[in-house]
């Protein structure tokens, strides 16, 4: 790996070198390194456009790193990663994509991650997106996450796109079985002329399933963001979504909440708030000795933490 690739890898995964445990590192459209373990098997798809990961039932406290780095301008790829997670597992999956664009050519990574989770398992999925380089070509990422969460299993998805991605369309779909839980925390910051759309489709099909979607975003300059959630309660279940956005400059943010109860025992709540940084928050931090700029920075970084 060259230094640009190493920097991207660190930005999205915090990795300085090859991680322990199972991993698959993809750079510029090719597999850079791969490792399976006793419980986690990573197999390349025959078509060459991704990997299939099998996690044995009962696998506990293991992690899988699957970062993607694009440093060649003009590269466009669609990658499919399918996870089959057995019953009674407790695993952490760390994905992420970093794009460096140093020329006028666009670079694009569309990653489709599918999770098929058995019963009584716990999965934490962490995903970071980051763009760098000063080329005029666009850094485009369109991540799609598909989740089928089995009985009494719980999935926590933590996703962040803080810097440098020009255009993103993020689609997240989930189907929850009896007693299944889903928590999604999305943090997004756009600047310049960037656009970001994030759309959720969640079907709570099983009794006592629950969902909590939390989106916090900051839109700066002339950027545009759209948040759309579609939560369907098809059984006795509980769902909550919360979308908070801060606008800085001339940015635009649209929040389109959708909650549908197809069962009289479905309890669904949506909260949304969009606005500038409250003036009194800046004043409070200034009374602690911060400058106006430092106060704004502090408020945004706390909000996106």
């Amino acid at each position, binding site marked *: 790996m060259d230094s640009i690739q190493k920097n991207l890898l660190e930005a999205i995964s915090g990795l300085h070198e090859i991680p322990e445990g199972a991993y698959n590192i993809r750079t510029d459209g090719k597999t850079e390194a791969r490792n399976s373990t006793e419980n986690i098997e990573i197999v390349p798809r025959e078509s060459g456009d991704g990997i299939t990961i099998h996690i044995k039932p009962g696998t506990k406290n293991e992690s899988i790193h699957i970062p993607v780095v694009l440093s060649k301008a003009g590269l466009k790829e669609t990658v499919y990663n399918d996870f089959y997670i057995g019953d009674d597992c407790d695993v952490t999956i760390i994905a992420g994509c970093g794009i460096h664009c140093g020329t006028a050519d666009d670079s694009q990574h569309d990653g489709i991650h599918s999770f098929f989770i058995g019963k009584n398992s716990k999965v934490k999925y962490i995903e970071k997106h980051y763009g760098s380089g000063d080329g005029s070509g666009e850094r485009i990422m369109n991540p799609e996450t598909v989740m089928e969460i089995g009985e009494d299993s719980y999935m926590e998805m933590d996703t962040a796109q803080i810097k440098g991605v020009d255009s993103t369309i993020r689609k997240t779909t989930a189907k929850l079985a009896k007693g299944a839980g889903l928590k999604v925390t999305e943090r997004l910051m756009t600047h310049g002329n960037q656009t970001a759309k994030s759309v959720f489709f969640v079907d709570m099909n099983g009794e006592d399933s629950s969902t909590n979607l939390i989106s*916090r975003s900051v839109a700066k300059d002339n950027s545009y963001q759209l948040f759309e959630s579609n939560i369907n309660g098809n059984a006795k279940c509980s769902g909550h979504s919360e979308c*908070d956005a801060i606008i800085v400059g001339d940015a635009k943010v649209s929040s389109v909440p959708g909650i549908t109860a197809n069962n009289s025992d479905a309890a669904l709540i949506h909260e949304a708030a969009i606005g500038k940084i*409250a003036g*009194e*928050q800046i*004043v*409070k*931090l*200034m*009374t*602690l*000795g*911060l*400058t*106006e700029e430092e106060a704004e920075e*502090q*408020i945004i970084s*706390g*909000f*996106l*933490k």
Partner: protein
Amino acid sequence: MLEIRDISFSVSDQERDKEKGILEHVSFTLEDNKFVAITGPNGGGKSTLAKIIAGIEKPTEGRIFFDGQDITDWSITDRAKAGISYAFQQPVRFKGVTVFDLINLAAGREISLSGACQYLSEVGLCAKDYINREVNSSLSGGEMKRIEIATVMARGTRLSVFDEPEAGIDLWSFQNLIHVFENMNKERKGSILIISHQERILNTADEILVIAEGKLVKRGSREEVLPGLLQEADGADGCQIWKQGGVK
């Protein structure tokens, strides 16, 4: 030492198409290491005066001096750095900022977790329950007030201005709050200017200032001012006391 020299503040009253005076020619000095309370009826201009000292509002007329320097045109930040702290009457909430973050920012340096907990304990909060909580709407009014006071303590500046610390808190929290100020008075580390209506807070002050209808109508030691205030407050027409130029 803080000197308020001939401060006036007015806002435009659009309905009547004229300026409305909030403060009129208020002057006083606050000596170092004094505990001074400002009291008076609601709407009299006390909170505006506190904001003017902190730099949140600019006076229409008059000057403010801090340690002999004219700080009238200084920003909020510059005043904070010079050693002025201000506790909001209605503390501000932040999503994502934890109590620890806020105390750290207030201290202006990296402080340890136990250091931050110390300040929370001083305001009667069980530190481990609060230190990692976000300063958001999950905290009650009384909890917010105490955290606000903890941030001012963490700054440890030579002048601390508190705007009605007792406002909006329940009776039980109030009892604890009184102890906080009694302790602050005992272990004095700088000057304290506190706006309050509460007898027990006024009772800890060295000096009491009465501001009514934008004017400083009375100033004196606690012994001079407080008995009259309490006596007159029991009277039928409290308004008259202030209008007649305070308690005689």
